[in-house]
């Protein structure tokens, strides 16, 4: 048969040759629809829109190449094999041949999705780019009860994967933003230049509804688990830590997985960096640290886990800061946000989330409950996070704040004054860090106050602290650590820049205001020049006329686009208006 042979009645080109409807595809592949769905989900194949929908508008079209791609998928054959295997088992059971059934059951054909992961994401960066949905789903399932079709094993696996991911993020200090929403807590991290946002549900009993198809969800979960596992492997590999991590069973028993993971990572990294430690510990400023480090190292070698001690944790955090220089500015900033803070979590606050968040920003955490590295009575503790109406016994040496304070501090990248966040006080509003207020056209009051606070902090407080540092160093050692000096200078520079930017922004705003004023002033002047009888024309009329006139000569396509844009703009404006009105009303109510 010649290569170009084409059966009669088969189109060679055009939409009909390129696309195939779903039903036809299913027939062509000789599989059932659920199987087709499953394959599509695993292979990441989605319908496409042909230029002309030749079989009707309501049908789903797939590209023929995609379908052929499925046809040659080894997984398809594997699925068939599994189906026949299941039939064999069923047959054996029906014939009461239990031995055979057992034997067959123990040798079920299995498959792995690693090849598919590589196929769908040939580069690691591709996988990171598509990780958001995966992460959200895994975190959701980690919080789900094992009811009905959901297997306990998978939920445990999800939990493990999510903790591993969080441990990596907090270890590399790549968390950028957090947001407590009604849906759960949103986190945004930056991994290898990719901004990844994911949602973790609140740590409560999740509601399981019946209106979801668990076939689909579990298939997705299957792929996502594999994907995240490989991603975690790669990420751990990139920071020289063995994967899968071996956790301290004691800590696991106390449901302190995250902490166990962080300790594992610390242990691994300290082992790997033992050789290089001698070089880095030259500077005199860290003499004490080195001694402490040696002491703990010995114990590491014995138990493979570092001793639970707040001091060692602190050391690790600080020690890393000096060793790793290949970090970008933002990471450095994030790393030192909670540098000198030691937190203690009461039992009513979300432990996992706060542990993750605080350690990602360089803080040390202890909690109420077993295996905590810190006791409540510890003198080091600077902040205790409580979420109860009243706190009976209070230590004077620490501040008692509500959990929102931590999240707000992170979002605004500064240690906020704790006044508003005291125990039992009414909290200030929690704003989304993902919204660009300027673009939205409405800036909430709280954002303004925060801006002022930030500006104030940058102007006065931080340079002073830098000075202090310098003084301290001079007094203590008489030698200024080069690194620190560099850091401070860099900080100064950055602050200056930020300040400048802010000032520029202010100036711009001011200008805008003026210019808009000018416009409003000018317009009537112009119109008055134009019109002799002002009763007939006014500003709005002229504006409308101008708009009208310009749209007259547009092509239809452009006009439609223009109109659509205008509509969206007006909607946005209406929204802003609504917000303003509501605020006015609320204020008037308060006054009354």
């Amino acid at each position, binding site marked *: 048969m010649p290569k170009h042979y084409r059966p009669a009645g088969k189109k060679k080109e055009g939409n009909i040759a390129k696309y195939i409807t779903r039903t036809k595809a299913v027939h062509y592949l000789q599989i059932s629809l659920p199987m087709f769905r499953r394959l599509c989900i695993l292979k990441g194949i*989605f319908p496409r829109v042909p230029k002309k929908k030749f079989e009707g508008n309501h049908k*789903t079209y797939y590209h023929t190449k995609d379908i052929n791609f499925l046809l040659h998928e080894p997984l398809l054959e594997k699925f068939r094999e599994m189906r026949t295997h299941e039939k064999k088992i069923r047959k054996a059971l029906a014939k009461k041949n239990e031995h055979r059934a057992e034997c067959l059951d123990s040798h079920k054909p299995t498959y792995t999705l690693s090849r598919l992961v590589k196929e769908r994401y040939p580069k690691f960066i591709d996988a990171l780019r598509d990780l958001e*949905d995966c992460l959200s789903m895994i975190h959701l399932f980690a919080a789900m009860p094992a009811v009905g079709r959901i297997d306990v094993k998978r939920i445990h696996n999800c939990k493990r994967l999510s903790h591993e991911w969080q441990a990596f993020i907090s270890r590399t200090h790549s968390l950028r933003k957090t947001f*407590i929403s009604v*849906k759960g807590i949103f986190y945004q991290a930056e991994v290898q230049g990719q901004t990844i946002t994911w949602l973790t549900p609140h740590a409560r009993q999740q509601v399981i509804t019946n209106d979801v198809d668990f076939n689909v969800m579990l298939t997705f979960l299957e792929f996502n688990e594999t994907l995240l596992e490989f991603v975690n492997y790669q990420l751990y590999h990139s920071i020289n830590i063995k994967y899968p991590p071996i956790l301290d069973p004691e800590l696991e028993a106390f449901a302190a997985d995250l902490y166990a993971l962080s300790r594992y990572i610390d242990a691994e990294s300290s082992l790997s960096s033992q050789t290089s430690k001698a070089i880095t510990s030259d500077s005199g400023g860290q003499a004490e640290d080195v001694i402490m480090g040696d002491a703990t190292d010995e114990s590491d070698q014995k138990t493979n886990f570092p001793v639970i001690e707040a001091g060692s944790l602190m050391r690790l955090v600080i020690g890393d800061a000096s060793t790793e220089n290949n970090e970008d500015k933002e990471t450095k900033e994030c790393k030192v946000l909670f540098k000198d803070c030691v937190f203690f979590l009461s039992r009513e606050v979300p432990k996992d989330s706060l542990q993750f968040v605080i350690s990602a920003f360089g803080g040390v955490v202890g909690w109420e409950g077993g295996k905590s590295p810190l006791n409540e009575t510890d003198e080091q503790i600077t902040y205790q996070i409580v979420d109860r109406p009243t706190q009976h016994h209070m230590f004077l040496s620490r501040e008692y704040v509500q959990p929102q304070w931590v999240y707000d501090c992170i979002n605004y990248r500064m240690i906020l004054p704790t006044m508003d966040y005291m125990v039992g006080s009414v909290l200030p509003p929690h704003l989304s860090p993902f*919204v660009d207020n300027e673009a939205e056209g409405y800036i909430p009051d709280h954002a303004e106050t925060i801006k002022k606070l930030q500006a104030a902090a940058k102007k006065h407080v931080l340079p002073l602290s830098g000075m202090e540092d310098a003084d301290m160093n001079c007094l203590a050692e008489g030698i200024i650590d080069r690194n620190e000096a560099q850091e401070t200078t860099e900080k100064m520079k950055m602050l200056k820049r930020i300040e400048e930017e802010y000032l520029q922004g202010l100036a711009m705003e001011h200008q805008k205001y003026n210019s808009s004023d000018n416009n409003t002033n000018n317009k009537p002047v112009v119109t008055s020049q134009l019109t002799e009888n002002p009763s007939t024309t006014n500003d709005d009329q002229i504006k409308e006329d101008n708009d009208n006139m310009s749209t007259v*000569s547009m092509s239809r396509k452009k006009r439609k686009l223009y109109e659509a844009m205008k509509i969206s703009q007006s909607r946005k404006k209406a929204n802003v208006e609504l917000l303003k009105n509501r605020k006015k009303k609320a204020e008037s109510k308060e006054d009354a």
Partner: protein
Amino acid sequence: MGEKPLVGKKRMKRKYRDNEIEPRSTPIDNIPEEEEKEIPMHLLDDWSDDGSDDVDFLEDEESSDEEDWTDESEQSISDDGDDVEETSEDEDGDLEEDDECIVFGGKKAESSNERSIAAAEESDSSEDEVPNRNTIGDVPLEWYEGEEHIGYDKTGKKIKKQAKKDKLDSFLAGADNSGNWRKIYDDYNDEEIELTKEETKLIRKIIKGKTPHSDANPYEEYIDWFNYEDKNHPVSSAPEPKSRFLPSRWEHKKVVKLVRAIRNGWIKADKPKEEPRCFLLWGDDTTENERRGLSYIPAPKAKLPGHELSYKPPVEYIPTQEEINSYQLMHEEDRPKFIPRRLESMRTAPAYDNALKESFERLLDLYLCPRIRKKRIDIDPESLKPKLPHPKDLQPYPTMCFLEYKGHTGPVTSISIHVSGEWIASGSNDGTARIWEVENGRCLKIWQFDEAIQHVAWNPLPELPIIAVSTGQDVFLLDTGCGSEDQSQNIKGLLNVNVSVLTTNSEENSAPLVTWVNHEKYDGIRLKHFKLVTTIDWHYKGDYFCTVVPTILIHQLSKKQTQNSIKKLHGLPVTAVFHPSRPFFFVSTKKNVRVYNLSNQKLIKKLETGFREISSISIHPGGDNVIVGSKEGKLCWFDMDLSCKPYKTMRNNLKDITGVAFHRSYPLFAICSHDSIAYVFHGMVYSDLNQNPLIVPLKILRGHKKTNGGGVLDCKFHPKEPWLFTAGGDSVIKLYCNEAPSMY
């Protein structure tokens, strides 16, 4: 149950004959049969154990076997009969006892007398009570072979061996005594015992394999304990087939198969090995790592949450109760899916109800939604507007209302400006036609007619200041008296209908389309039509003019002639216009514009507007461009050299275009509409044929009030200045100027 196969029956028969009974028709259970079989086998074993003496006995038996057979059988049968009658109570027990008595029979022999007495006394337990004479116990007798004694008696005295008889003696003794066959020699006690009759009977029975005890009934009535009711399948009473006792070939084959399968690794006993779960998947970047296949479109990322999703949003993000209530009235699709609310603190935040559902919906989007790359334009919408020259650079054009001509009492339907630009004629629904002075708005002249005026038109010749006024079914040609004296004389001559000429004309046409009559009252000509005259247009030379009744008539003023040259038209004609310089004639029906050449009376072009209802048409003074306005509020510009399709169609957000007009010298055109708006455009036509006309909207002129009569009903440009006159439905005519005219 039922009958058994013949072969089986035969075999049975033989078997039963061995046992010396007739085969029974009733089924015999397996168990009694087995018992019957087993007993003799066991006994035989015992016999063989007993040693050499038994052989003698047996030999004896054999010798007498043949002869005794018949009577014995008779006896047994008779015995059997007795046995059946006296049913034995304890069959098993009897059997055991019989066993014993036979086993030890040889050793416990007594004197025949004693034995007989014992037997007479008690048939069962005779042997136990008869003590042995010898007391050596159970030792081998050969130990005493060479001795004179065979052992010791109770008192410890030696028991002397009896002298052995000669063979001959013994034979003789045997031959004499008929009961000799009953005598057996007891080695142990070294004496001869004579068996009783019962004992011989017992032995016989044992030899035959029968129940030894005479009281036992081997053929007892069978009591079937098994319940056959409610059983679907019969319980087979068939004997065990032979195959059950042979190794199965099939099983053998199966085993071979299994062995082969195990050897070949088809059956694995041990669990499969677990491969490492994960590894460095993206380890080496050396291999090609480009995605193959179709271009991958990554799924759009989920929308990031805004302030309203916060657990504690600012107050203004929370809708009031009224607003929430109003959501219920909204359509389901428009209703906001999420209503923000304020939680007190983090500990009060509950689990989100729709978490699973929303996640599922996202998944559905991921695998079911077709993905397309769409260019999202993130630009300022203003930048979409075409870059047109600024209106200021295109001055002069009329911008503001300068004068109003008031006097009409009804909507002004039509206006016309004299070529010199000094006078303006207007016609109104109140039935008056007026002439105004342009510069000061003074009304020069008024004609009153009976019906509303449809159209007024000045003669384009400056030396002929005549206007044509259409009212009802008539068209009047009137002298305005604006010209000089010579001109007015000339006009008078022209406006006088010569009756003779008319008659000749009317003779030619059997039914005259129009009658030309002198009108005395206003000193003009009256053309009587047969229907309502809508529009009038003068030819540029001023001699011809056309009127549109539903048919199109062209009149010649000098000859007072009328002709109807265009007869075939698809659709009703709306307006008709002469070309400003060439002998072309434009007739617009409701949808199209037809262009005729008047010199050879042929259709040149058909301009397709695509409109539903054309209302007005105007021709560029250059002659190649036409604008057509429609009642849908659309305007189209035709470049006649280009195509018969519109060069540009413009929607103006207007209701209904009533009039369009080109300026004679300036590159301006205007449209007016029922929205009481007049639109001024810059419409530049270039002499270079490669360059398309430039159309720039310049100004929207407002000022007329909206009345029932309509907005702006007509607009005309001043022939020399960039001024626009508009006739309003509010019975006012307005003059829009570019700036305050300098003449004052």
